[in-house]
């Protein structure tokens, strides 16, 4: 038992080193430049723009899912789009996170009554952060990224506390 505390997956050393890695992970969130609808203008284009400049936080866009850590689902997902979203998610290497941006990605938004629309992207891929708004302002997305950073850090913190 005591040995387990020193060496195993719950050892202090392991968690601390994991914490260090999480520090790197949360400060280097590359998002997939994959805008579906209106939210892409606010969440992806304004994000890179001069006023909001997410690059300050090390949040940068990559075109290929293989090189990204975060997928921002920015828009309505319908029956034709869902397999594509799923496939892109599968193509991303672990660890990966998903932000459902806007009402459409969260619940289907104003279009949820239409039978072709999927009511929330959580039916397709697991979602970490939900951002309300139609569309959310770029500031909301900044806040979402901060929440995601907290979430990444909190996992190891919880394990540390549970010891």
């Amino acid at each position, binding site marked *: 038992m005591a040995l387990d505390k020193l060496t195993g997956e719950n050892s202090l050393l392991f968690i601390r080193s994991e914490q260090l890695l999480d520090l790197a992970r949360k400060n*280097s969130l590359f998002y997939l430049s994959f805008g579906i609808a209106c939210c892409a203008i606010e969440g992806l284009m304004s994000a890179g*723009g001069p006023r909001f400049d997410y*690059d*300050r936080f*090390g949040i940068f866009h990559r075109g*290929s899912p293989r*090189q990204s850590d975060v997928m921002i689902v920015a828009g309505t997902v319908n029956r034709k789009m869902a397999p594509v979203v799923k496939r892109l998610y599968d193509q991303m*290497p672990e660890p990966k996170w998903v932000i459902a941006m806007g009402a459409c990605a969260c619940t289907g938004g104003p279009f949820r009554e239409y039978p072709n629309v999927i009511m929330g992207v959580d039916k397709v891929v697991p979602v970490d952060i939900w951002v309300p708004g139609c569309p959310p302002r770029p500031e909301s997305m900044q806040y979402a990224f901060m929440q995601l950073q907290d979430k990444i850090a909190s996992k190891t913190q919880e394990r540390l506390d549970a010891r």
Partner: protein
Amino acid sequence: MNAVAPIAIRILAMLGLLLVNGVVLIYMLRKVLGRLHIRIGPNRVGPFGLLQTVADVVKLLTKEDLMPDSADKWLFWIAPFVVFVPSFLAYLPLAFGPNLAVTRLDTGLLFLLAVLSLIPIGVLMAGWASNSKWSLVGGMRAAGQQIAYEVPLLLSVLGPVMMAGSLDLSKIIEAQKNLWFVFPQFIAFIIYIIAAQADTQQTPFDMSEAESELITGFANEYGGMRFGFLFLAEFSNMFIVAALGTALFFGGWYLPFLADNPIALSLGPVIFIAKAYIGIFVMMWARGALPRIRVDQLLAFAWKALIPISLSWVVIWACIQRLVLVR
């Protein structure tokens, strides 16, 4: 043992320089692009965002190592190293100070250009092995482009070589003690910067990874540290061509009018690297400002304009040197 140790230390030092260069250059790129684009660039991770690239590298190291199902496993695995190793080898003959080089080769320049021309093989390998059509197109573009631009690159360095009478980079630099070769060889210098920009696939010649056309081109299917290696090789190539330009045209470690000053001479490596960084800054400037040229225009420009001009410059300079200067 005694013979091996200094060489090993030198090689390790060079590897260290390469890695530090990569990290610093990526940070510099993001900052320079940020400023050019009226943004700020990374400033939250560490003081002034200095640790940004470190965080990126550590993150890339801990990412899942993906291997596409349909990829040619062996080639896919080895391609990043085939890209990376030549760009490391190219550091070896670089002379940073009067006696500061990993190895002093009489044919240093030839060696450097020879290993640089191995890189497209790795790029093509990466493009092919990924079994993605976008990667393949990117790899093919890289191969065609490098074959086209190797020729003017080689021809453009002949002018300084003729003036110095040597292929040893240290000797070429020493020959520029009083006159930087950029002044007599201005045409060769212009050809050199264009060809070097194309050879390292920088904007406006970034055909192989053309962000808006091929997404990330040959590196499309690479994630994690393999992608990191490709990225690092790109930046180390940038440093190599900038350093080579410094050595060939801007007097290497010499400062103007202070060539004999012992303090300036002792600061040689710093001056050399500073000059190279100024060159890199110009490359980044172009990257931030220019659109991308089209692939057929690129090749036509190489074969129809650059190669004839550089060839005739070699002939003209040979005549000048033989008939006017040496007589």
